[in-house]
């Protein structure tokens, strides 16, 4: 190790003092975000620290520009050099796998929800930071808490930074035309509405192709709305049950009302169909609305667009989950305190609230105090995305978050189960049996 001098000790002390004050941002917390007293973790910054961060590429320009502005603030406040590289959404997992396997590369990864659970033995414990943030900002939502803690323990292994929720996106005028003020929560009425929309030649459409977000979103919504789940709490396969059969039958009926072609839809397909006014309703993140709103030529469609929660909720248990942006720090980093301090800084209201607001709520907050953010009052239409962090479901529900639950998602087992029934290739019973066989094989392989 390099010689540690008194000068270094002085720098470190000064850095720590500066860092703590700047990081906590007590005095200048963003207006409107309630905070509670909390003691920040002691993170004396390592002298000469430099950290590298990778995260998914921007959803909108503001996502990247505000992130970079906040990063520049951190650099000014602490002297720690930070560099963030943006990686394609589908590609970030390969880079994380390389970093985890080789023990080199980025110090911080703001990656996808399940990633920290795959590499929990290669990343730092984040309990101190998560506890501080939770205390200060009204606690964590149930979904980020589930993805932040190692399954079945109270140890935080990551800091969830945002929850990209899904909701119904619909044309209000068209629903009104068929006698509905808003999409009904009851599944039979929802089917009736879909049939009526089809009759006026403005059908609905949900992705049933191998689409990472939207395809899995459709399948999981239908499954959960009928009380189905792929595995139980211990990871025993439970997909071949009567709830799944019911979900498949309902899915097949609903599919008859879809615009043709949804079996091959990928993630951008429903955006395109909605923007080009081919469909009246779909399930998506806030991105469709964002695009419509920011293009003067489609402002009229944006004006007529509304959002609603997915139907089939039991009370407040909406059959939805969210795509959690989950930050972790690799153990191979030479500057663990600086890396954690960076995440802390980005999560403080002074930085986090502008990011949340400018992204139009695409990454819904994981910390409940941000319910009060102006992001949710500036444009009430995006309100259904606000509670993404409160969703009770997750990928692989009800089982542990693991490589197996991720593999079921990545291999589109649930999507293909629904697609096979909707296309008439399989009966609901056969499709559920086939899904059971595939899920069993994946969970057995992961356990072995």
């Amino acid at each position, binding site marked *: 190790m390099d010689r540690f001098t008194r000068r270094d000790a002085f720098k470190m002390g000064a850095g720590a003092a500066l860092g703590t004050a700047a990081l906590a941002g007590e005095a200048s917390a963003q207006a409107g975000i309630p905070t509670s007293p909390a003691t920040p973790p002691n993170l004396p910054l390592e002298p000469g620290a430099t950290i*590298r961060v*990778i995260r998914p*590429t*921007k*959803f*909108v320009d503001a996502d990247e520009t505000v992130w970079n502005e906040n990063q520049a603030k951190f650099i000014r406040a602490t002297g720690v050099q930070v*560099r963030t*590289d*943006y*990686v*394609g*959404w*589908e*590609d970030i997992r*390969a*880079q994380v*796998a*390389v970093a985890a*396997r*080789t*023990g*080199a*590369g*980025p110090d911080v990864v703001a990656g996808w929800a399940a990633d920290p659970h795959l590499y929990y033995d290669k990343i730092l414990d984040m309990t101190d930071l998560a506890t501080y943030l939770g205390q200060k900002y009204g606690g964590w939502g149930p979904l980020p808490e589930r993805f932040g803690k190692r399954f079945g323990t109270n140890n935080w292994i990551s800091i969830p930074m945002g929850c*990209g929720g899904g909701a119904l996106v619909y044309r209000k005028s068209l629903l009104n035309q068929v006698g509905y003020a808003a999409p009904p929560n009851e599944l039979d009425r929802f089917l009736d509405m879909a049939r009526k929309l089809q009759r006026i030649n403005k059908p609905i459409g949900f992705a049933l192709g191998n689409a990472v*977000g*939207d395809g899995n979103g459709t399948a999981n919504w239908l499954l959960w709305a009928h009380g189905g789940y792929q595995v139980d709490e211990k990871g025993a396969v439970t997909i071949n049950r009567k709830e799944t059969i019911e979900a498949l039958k309902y899915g097949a009926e609903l599919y008859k009302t879809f615009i043709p072609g949804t079996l091959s839809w990928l*993630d*951008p397909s429903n*955006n*395109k169909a909605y*923007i*080009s*006014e*081919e469909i009246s309703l779909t399930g*998506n*993140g806030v*991105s469709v609305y964002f*695009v419509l709103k920011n*293009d003067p*030529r489609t402002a009229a469609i944006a004006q007529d667009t509304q959002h609603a929660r997915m139907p089939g909720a039991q009370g407040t248990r909406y059959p939805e989950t969210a795509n959690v942006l989950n930050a972790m720090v690799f153990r191979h980093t030479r500057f663990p305190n600086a890396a954690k301090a960076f995440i802390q800084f980005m999560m403080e209201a002074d930085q986090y609230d502008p990011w949340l607001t400018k992204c139009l709520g*695409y990454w819904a907050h994981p910390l409940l105090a941000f319910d009060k953010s102006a992001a949710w009052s500036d444009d009430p239409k995006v309100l259904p995305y606000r509670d993404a962090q409160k969703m009770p479901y997750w990928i692989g529900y009800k089982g542990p978050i693991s490589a197996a639950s991720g593999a079921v998602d990545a291999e589109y087992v649930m999507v293909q189960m629904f697609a096979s029934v909707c296309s008439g290739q399989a009966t609901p019973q056969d499709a559920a049996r086939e899904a059971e066989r595939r899920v069993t094989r994946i969970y057995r392989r992961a356990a072995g």
Partner: protein
Amino acid sequence: MTEAAKPLSSINTRVDSEVQGGVTEAEGPQMMSWDSHTRRWVVVYIPLLIFLFVLLFPFYWMGVTTFKPDSELLDFKNNNPFWVANPTLANINKLIFETDYTHWLVTTMFVAVGSTFLSILASVLAAYAIQRLRFKGSDYVGLAIYAAYLVPPSILFIPLAQVVFEMGLYDTSFALILTYPTFLVPFCTWLLIGYFKSIPYELEECALIDGASRLQILRRITLPLAVPGLISAGIFAFTLSWNEFIYALAFISSTENKTVPVAILTELVSGDVYHWGALMAGALLGSLPVAIFYMFFVEYYVSSLTGAVKE
């Protein structure tokens, strides 16, 4: 009209055509007696047109999409999907002036040229040794090299990443220049083994009798004769390097060091919003260097596929 009443010239033409193998002047010199226009259309022209359509349509689609405004791109009901009513340069403008596209192009070119040069150099030496030195087990070495080509990059990229990190090459162009030969060398070696095989051994024997060394033979006899083969291997290696994705994704993390295939996806796909116009512009411009490369060397390329020196 009876045979006797026919003009003499028409009879002469028919007789001539029979002598020449049943080809009339109107039908052209290549047409055989058993051939006919209908048959030609069915077995040659129609399959050729289908083939051309399958090959060229993606390029046409890339081109059309590049110049389409978003309004036409998203609305096929009111716009012809196969044509551009109001062409725009906005997508190319976005690609070139709002991203680091030109920088990515330069990086990709540097990587492709570097890895191609290294691979051809290694492959020439390997192929010559295997084909001409005929040491014990050379056939098996040839097979083993080809077997290495069959290992998919998706399996190799993690162990290779370890090597790249150990060598301190992570996030540099050299990480790619030095790893691409793992799949280029086997392919090029295999291709060149076949090519060297078609060069008569007697030419080298003459050189040996004249006192040339092995390296002199390689430099002065074999390589000049193998230029089409080298160009063919070079084109393959260049194209594979240009389009490679997974190593470029895993070993490069800085935006400015990325190659075109990875970078355009990072910059032009925002979540589930695909900027199709700019993406297609990127793909179209990215495919131009390869197309130009082919255009210049197509004759060598074809001749390499049909053998080297005719005995």
